[in-house]
């Protein structure tokens, strides 16, 4: 008990501190690195909750893939952060509004009775069988109860993917591309062409 609460406070405090550093670090690359630290600590919290599958998915998807590309972009772009900071006071009211809304929402969540849920206790949000490991639990509930929502998620991702491909696909003329199949099928009979050249004329 003592150890688990100790690890909880370790993970959560590092997560909150690194989240704070994300918005306060001067260097954008440092911000992204702190964001990654925050992700990793969040996945540690998931492990403490007993949701080890979610924890690993968080690391694989967000830290292993999304944040890598994020870091990639931030490193490549030459962002002038001093200029970005100039509008701080201008954007302050908007940011404060967002923060207040979030705090109110969290407050409502804490004050309401959490034993009742949106389905009025008819279908609990988690499978009743407790012995099943949570990878199986997620599978059982995701592909039965939430099957259509799951399919819609897939379609949204597909649309986003097609959209980003169309945005970046430019067919510039004059680009030489390698056709590996045609290269591999080349042999002496197709690669060499014999021509009779008349003396004094050339081809």
């Amino acid at each position: 008990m003592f150890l688990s609460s100790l690890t909880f406070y370790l993970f959560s405090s590092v997560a909150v501190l690194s989240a704070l550093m994300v918005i306060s670090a001067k260097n954008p690359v440092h911000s992204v690195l702190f964001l990654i630290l925050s992700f990793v600590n969040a996945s540690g919290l998931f492990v403490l909750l007993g949701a080890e599958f979610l924890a690993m998915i968080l690391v694989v998807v967000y830290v292993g893939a999304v944040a890598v590309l994020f870091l990639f972009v931030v490193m490549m772009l030459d962002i002038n952060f001093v200029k970005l900071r100039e509008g701080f006071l201008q954007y302050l009211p908007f940011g404060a509004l967002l923060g207040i809304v979030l705090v109110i929402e969290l407050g409502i969540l804490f004050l309401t009775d959490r034993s009742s849920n949106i389905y009025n206790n008819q279908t609990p949000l988690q499978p009743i069988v407790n012995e099943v490991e949570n990878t199986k639990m997620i599978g059982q509930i995701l592909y039965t109860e939430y099957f259509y929502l799951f399919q819609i998620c897939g379609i949204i991702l597909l649309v986003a993917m097609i959209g980003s491909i169309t945005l970046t696909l430019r067919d510039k003329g004059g680009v030489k591309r390698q056709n590996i199949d045609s290269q591999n099928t080349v042999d002496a009979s197709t690669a060499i062409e014999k021509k009779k050249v008349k003396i004094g004329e050339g081809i």
Partner: protein
Amino acid sequence: MNYDILITGLIIVAQIFAVVVPVLISVAFLVYAERKVLALIQLRRGPNIVGPFGILQSFADALKLITKENIIPSGSNKIVFILAPIITMVLSLAGWAVIPFAPGWVVSDINVGIMYLFAVSSLGVYGIIMAGWASNSQYPFLGALRSAAQMVSYEVSIGFVIITVLLCVGSLNLSKIVLAQQTVWFAIPLLPMFIIFFISALAETNRLPFDLPEDESTLVAGFFTEYSSASFVLFFLGEYASMILMSSMTVILFLGGWLPPFDVYPLNVVPGVIWFTVKVIFILFLFIWVRGTFPRYRYDQLMRLGWKVFLPFSLFWVVATSGFLVYFDMLPN
């Protein structure tokens, strides 16, 4: 009660040492073995001065590197520059926590073992990106960019290969994956996936023919150009430790982990850890053999192989395997 915590803590520390120390020693011998095998391929002698047959060469090299001056470039981002090799090293050792060497010989037998390994190996790219960026120099930066794109691309097909194996096992626990191969090793029914996994493992560990992040003929030494002394040693150790880790992953997923090839008398008396070691050494030999045989890929060829060949093919195999398992009612559980 407090003593209980202390004792459990001490046992965990002892277990960690029992895994990490042999791994580090095997890294030293792997470097030696690589130099010897490459030398044999190229009709040279290889290291033969330090110790009998030059067997202590790696230890001499490590000693030499550590006693050198550690240079931190003045234009570099110092904290990230120092952190990068440490992260590489730690991540390449962290994966060993879930590897089952023999029945029950595992530090942490978690439910999602294979996901953990996949997560740790996908984090490995950070050490390289951070090193390349923090060096504040062109060649390391190019190496880091290449590595970021390369490792993300090949993770996709590794993920599909893992899904194919999991479909046949029905569990994410590594010990259960090994036990599911008691009738037949997955390398036989899933042979194309085994080959794809092996090639992707080469790309994931930045080994030849995919070592473009450290391509010495175009990028000096790639992402660790600016590193010297102890921080270079950490990169070196990390790279070879993750090579052994990926080989162990291949052995567990496809070559039956600690299981003997046939469950008959003289073979099944041999302890599981020996079978495991022999198989890992075999995969490592393949790594070195490939390095000695194939020329380096060009970057666009690498990307083409990852996205246009491996990804569609492994996706097709996931669908085909699941279709097969459902049709013949062979799904586990």
